[in-house]
């Protein structure tokens, strides 16, 4: 609106003035990609004052260009054999979260790996159907802070767009993704074509010899496209190829793109090499062919003397691998976060090591440098880089929701949503979630369900998908209290199972027996029990690669081939025993008849009787079921026994009875909380 006024009606004089006035919103979101729109959806649902800035004229501009070969590698599963919408999201990696059933990606594409244009269309629909407030054609080119005591975080965020228009926000959500292509500078890098501009027409590569720099999905996707028409393709990167089915990380090389591995290993001319790109140099000969040499030779030689004077590695080592000249060299090295628009005061720093392409953020997704600035979407992947799915739609749709919930609690006094259940529903609520929850499944080891126990373990409060990294701050971040201990439910792959160099098909890789559940390799639920909330220090000192500090007790639900953890004996029973051991309570269910007997013979009833039968909600059970229970020896049928009194209560019988009782009643004390097999 202001742009309109400034641009058309009042002319430049007023325009200058308007540059000092700010359009205020509680929340500013930069970027109308999947993460920005997802955040907008939650803000809209909560009735918050927000705006999304998008530099393009439509949402999802990244997808308008990328992936260049237009095939998304996020799966879009049409059928799962189940109607459970939450469960089905586990196999729908493209949809954003919303209440609108129309906005499921399967309504947009029937392809298992959909076309990128579909994503663009989907995002457009998402923004328009849900009437999200997106301001298009607004490129935020500068972000700075304005100190203010009144502000939520002690400062406002001042945003400037390409037209020098200013915006003021209390909270800034950065969802700009990573879009700045990674480049390497070495002598001759000017001959290198970038993934972002390289031709995608295979015809252009017919009969050519191609070198691809990089070994990620974009590199392999590029190779896949031209594999059939080139002389051969070589691929060079610093480290070995990481196959996603070995690393269990969706960002690594996906099988759909790995045709070149096949042709390499079968010696069909294509090849894969490891080497540091920084050491590389490229020289072009007179015919336009590109030769690989080393920076070292160039520095020593006389470049101006021309190609002939430059030493090539094969001059010394005549079987040098990349001695054949190339027609084209393509750079497919991925992207990085755009740090350029942030004022120094925001201290948006790149991460260290392999996460330097992402800004530094805390496990709560808040910037390390600036309070109130949250990074969403792909740019937030430093939290779980090479581990979970936080860099991808099917992961960050959940972390975005988590951030929204943190913000609701922090700024609006809306505590983290939770449901209070009676303790009898403890096993059920865990089983329900581990079987259907998508957020736990996609963001394994990053998002956790939290069960906060109420006093005396008679009830509990269930919080979904809380970031594990800020477990210690739970009370402050959620507005919920955890004075009586808690369970943390996460999903994990087996330790030492995943890795670029691991054989993930070894014999006996799958664990079937419940007692060996802790050795499970594939994704399976793990329940941590803490008698009290872990402290920040304990979080910091947790063993490396552990999502959580050492618990008071831990339980693994054995991995399941069908990821269906509802088997009464293999899944539910061990879980129930674990919970019982932790809480020293009896979580079994009983027919009303048993509760009736307990009511007359015991002063403390098991919760199922106490919270059900005694409150007139006993489980009568059908005749057939009670008969089954009797046959199982778990229910006594008193009608069968002859008590009519003709058998005198002789002492012998009684003593035998007593003996039996003595053997049976003092049943083993509760097992030590951490059983040998559950030992850490």
């Amino acid at each position, binding site marked *: 609106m202001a742009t309109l006024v400034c641009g058309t009606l009042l002319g430049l004089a007023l325009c200058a003035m308007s540059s000092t006035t700010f359009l205020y919103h509680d929340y500013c979101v930069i970027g109308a990609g999947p993460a920005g729109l997802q955040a907008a959806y939650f803000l809209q649902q909560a009735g918050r004052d927000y705006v999304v800035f998008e530099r393009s004229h439509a949402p999802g501009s990244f997808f308008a260009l990328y992936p260049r070969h237009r095939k998304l590698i996020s799966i879009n599963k049409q059928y799962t054999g189940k109607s459970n919408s939450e469960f089905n999201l586990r196999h729908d990696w493209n949809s954003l979260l919303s209440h609108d059933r129309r906005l499921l990606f399967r309504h947009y594409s029937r392809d298992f790996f959909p076309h990128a244009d579909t994503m663009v269309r989907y995002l457009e629909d998402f923004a328009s159907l849900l009437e999200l407030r997106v301001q298009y054609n607004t490129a935020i080119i500068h972000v700075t802070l304005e100190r203010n005591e009144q502000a939520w975080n002690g400062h406002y965020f001042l945003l400037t767009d390409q037209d020098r228009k200013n915006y003021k926000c209390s909270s800034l959500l950065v969802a700009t993704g990573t879009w700045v292509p990674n480049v390497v500078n070495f002598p001759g890098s000017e001959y290198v074509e970038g993934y972002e501009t390289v031709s995608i027409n295979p015809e252009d590569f017919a009969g050519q010899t191609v070198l691809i720099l990089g070994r990620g999905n974009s590199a392999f996707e590029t190779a896949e496209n031209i594999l059939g028409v080139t002389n051969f393709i070589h691929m060079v990167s610093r480290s070995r190829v990481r196959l996603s089915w070995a690393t269990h990380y969706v960002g690594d090389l996906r099988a759909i793109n790995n045709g070149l591995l096949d042709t390499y290993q079968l010696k069909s001319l294509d090849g894969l090499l490891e080497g540091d790109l920084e050491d590389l140099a490229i020289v072009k000969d007179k015919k336009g062919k590109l030769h690989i040499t080393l920076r070292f030779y160039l520095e020593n030689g006389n470049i101006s003397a021309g190609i002939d004077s430059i030493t090539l590695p094969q001059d010394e080592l005549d079987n040098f691998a990349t001695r054949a000249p190339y027609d084209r060299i393509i750079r497919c090295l991925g992207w990085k976060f755009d740090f350029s628009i942030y004022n120094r005061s925001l201290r948006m720093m790149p991460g260290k090591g392999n996460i330097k392409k992402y800004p530094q953020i805390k496990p709560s997704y808040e910037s390390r440098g600036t309070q109130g600035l949250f990074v969403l979407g792909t740019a937030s992947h430093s939290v779980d880089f090479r581990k979970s799915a936080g860099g991808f739609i099917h992961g960050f749709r959940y972390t975005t929701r988590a951030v929204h919930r943190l913000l609701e609690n922090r700024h609006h006094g809306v505590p983290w949503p939770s449901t209070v259940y009676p303790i009898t529903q403890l096993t*059920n609520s865990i089983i329900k979630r581990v079987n259907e929850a998508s957020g736990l499944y996609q963001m394994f080891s990053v998002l956790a369900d939290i069960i906060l126990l109420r006093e005396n373990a008679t009830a509990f409060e269930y919080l979904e998908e809380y970031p594990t990294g800020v477990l210690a701050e739970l009370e402050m971040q959620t507005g919920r209290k955890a004075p009586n201990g808690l369970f943390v439910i996460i999903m994990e792959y087996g330790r030492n199972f995943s890795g670029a160099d691991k054989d993930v098909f070894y014999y006996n890789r799958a664990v079937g027996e419940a007692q060996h559940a802790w050795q499970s390799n594939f994704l399976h639920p793990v329940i941590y029990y803490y008698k009290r909330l872990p402290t920040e220090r304990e979080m910091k000192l947790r063993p490396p690669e552990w999502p959580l500090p050492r618990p008071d007790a831990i339980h693994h639900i054995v991995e399941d081939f069908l990821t269906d953890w509802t088997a009464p004996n293999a899944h539910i029973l061990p879980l129930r025993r674990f919970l019982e051991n932790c809480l020293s309570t*009896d979580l*079994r269910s009983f*027919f*009303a008849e048993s509760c*009736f007997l307990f009511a007359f013979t015991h002063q403390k009833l098991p919760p199922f009787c106490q919270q059900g039968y005694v409150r*007139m909600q006993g489980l*009568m059970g059908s005749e*057939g079921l009670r008969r089954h229970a009797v046959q199982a020896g778990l229910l006594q049928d008193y009608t*069968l026994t002859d008590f009519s009194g003709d058998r005198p209560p002789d002492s012998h019988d009684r003593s035998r009875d007593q003996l039996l009782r003595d053997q049976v009643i003092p049943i083993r004390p509760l097992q030590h909380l951490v059983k040998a097999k559950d030992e850490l």
Partner: protein
Amino acid sequence: MSAQGDRWVSSFVFLLFCASSIPRPGIAGLRQEPSPQRYFSGLEAGRASLAFFTPHVSPGAQPFLEQIESSAEALQDYGISVVKVNCPKEDVSRYCGKENALRKAYLFRGNILIREFPTDALFDVNSIVANVLFALLFNEVKYVETLADLQNTENVLKGKSNMVFAYVPATGTAEHRAVMEAAFVYGTIHQFVLTTEAALLKATGNDDPDVSSAWLLFCHCQRATDPAQPCRRTALAQPLTLLNIHRHLKLMGAPLVTEVAEDPEKVSTVHLQLGLPLVFILSQRETYEADRRTAEFVAWQLLGKAGVALLSRDLVDLNVLHRSNVALKTPDERMPIQYLVLEDTDEVITLVEDKNKVKQIQEDEEKEEEEEEEDEDEKENNNQDIQDDQVVEAVSRDKKRELPLEQVLVLTEETFRSSLSEAARTVVLFYASWEAVSLAVLRSYSEVADHLKGTPGVLLSRVNCWDWPGICTQENVTQFPTIKIYGKGEKSVTYDGMWGTEELTSFIILSRVSCPLKLATMDEAEGYLRGEFPPELSSHHHTSLLGVFSTATSEAREAFEEAGSILSGHVMMGTYFEDDGLALSRKYSVSPPALLLARSRGRSVESISLSKQSVQDMVQMIRYELLDIFPEITVQNLPQYLQLTKPFLILFSDGDISQMESKEMLKLAKGRPQQAFVACWLNLKKTPVGYGILRTYFAAVPSLPVLVWVNLHAGGQVFQFPPEQSIAEVNVLSWLEKLQAGLETPSCRSSACFSLAAGDASSTEELRGGVAAAGRQR
């Protein structure tokens, strides 16, 4: 050398120190005296010395001299000096003069000659020491030749001191010396008796004595009281050496049974110090006396071989198997204490006596324990693997049966909303297909559907929350299962009754009419009280309620209507608004607002004035009023009476109760207006689980009928009405009075009666055990 060897040596050194601490002047070893005169003049009173007199050279005595010289040091330890006196040539005195005398050695105490030894009796150091000490300890060591002598000595000693009886095949031997040396130290404590008569050895009870070897018996005469019986004897099993005798005497001096009240690891007795094992008899308070006797018995058997200690487990927190009854501590400190389960005392004795056997037993035990542990592990695993949830197990055993659910409509996310508007009333069961309780209810639900087949206006349906989590969340289903009844244009009602076919059916039927039912005319109201209900409720046979209100009591009427909506489905309620001159009120002599209760279809109408105005109070009051005065307790209705938190007076009956009993009990129940207890009866034919209660209370089912007082809410004591008395109001009342006064004793078994103290942490375990026990008792 082992640690225990060191200990022996140190004890021995101590002994020697005692011996040598007797003051002795002069130099160690052989003393030389130039002349008999000098020798005799230098003799001190009470000092013993062994002298031999030599001429200048006496070649024949040369070997003897060597021996005597070497014994000098040994004798010196006992304060006996050995002196070589040189006889001058010209001396012809008593000791020097005779050729004969020169072949002898003379023992003097002071200047009194005690004994003269021929040199052939002093053939070596042992014989010299033995004979010299024997001579000196004439009083301390009695020499006996006959059995009578021995018995006399023994009898004299009885009750006074102990006796050490030694047999040596001959005097002057190493054994003899050992005995004498021991006597030198212990002679004042014990009476030493020595014999060389093999016959005596036989008489001491040795069946087949090896007369060629020495024997030593410790005779416990000090404790002996019976003059007719010989003193208890403990033989020294080892060869007779000074060290062994010393050990033996030390051991005999130790207390027979040591009572310990500390960790066996820390216990140390003389036995352990002397390298013998220590056997612990593990005792408990209850069995202490018996265990003490056992310990003493064992101690006698093991005397000299091992020590016995009595350890009360009550005082020490032992982290060992409860059934362990014996512990064995060996002197080797590296060895852990073995805790064993032994059958009888023989095993204890063999445990110690046969060292190989000890090892064997230990190994066996270890093996056994390992096996047991394995067994236990297995059991544990088995227990862990075995489903102990009766509902889960029952449902999984039933899973292959296909449920007759044709009458139950399956709803989906798509059809849910639309189907709610189809029937006047839609009953929806929300469940999870993997959840056992849900599935158990689903079975009852299919029976309900069967009962209600063809009932107009009612649609039974179900939603599987595992398939359609969206609806369940939307309908606020937080528990599995949940049943909600949706009426057209009404708020849904959540079913909160028993999960049983009957209860649910009745609820659905009752909730078809509005609650309360508005009755417009006096005729309608009276018809209602007579049991003329709308056709939907023709099967209703329970008490119905009618609220009677007037213009002035609209507030109460609103509360009543609110209460009606809460009790909808459970209670038949009507409301009548009187604007025709309070005819109904007058008929039942109440003033509005009032409540009329029509029990058993109008055969009796009670009236209650509605004083309480709040909805909750009204709900509670209505519930209370609907309770029977003398109900038959069933599994279904117990919770209603439990909520009264009163003690129960239950008449357990095998079938219907007699009219007489019923009359008396009813009198009792009606007796006091605000009863302090719930008088009720239980039909064991209808509620057979009542047998379970009786068996818990009385171990066996007492003769029926039986009247029982049980206070479930305080302490949980159970009292049985004396069976010899007849169940009459008077008798029961006087019994109850006595009971209240604490004059009656609880009549259930002490342990199993009402096993759970309130808040008992182990309760769930007991429960677990109880159920398992119930399972096994069949």
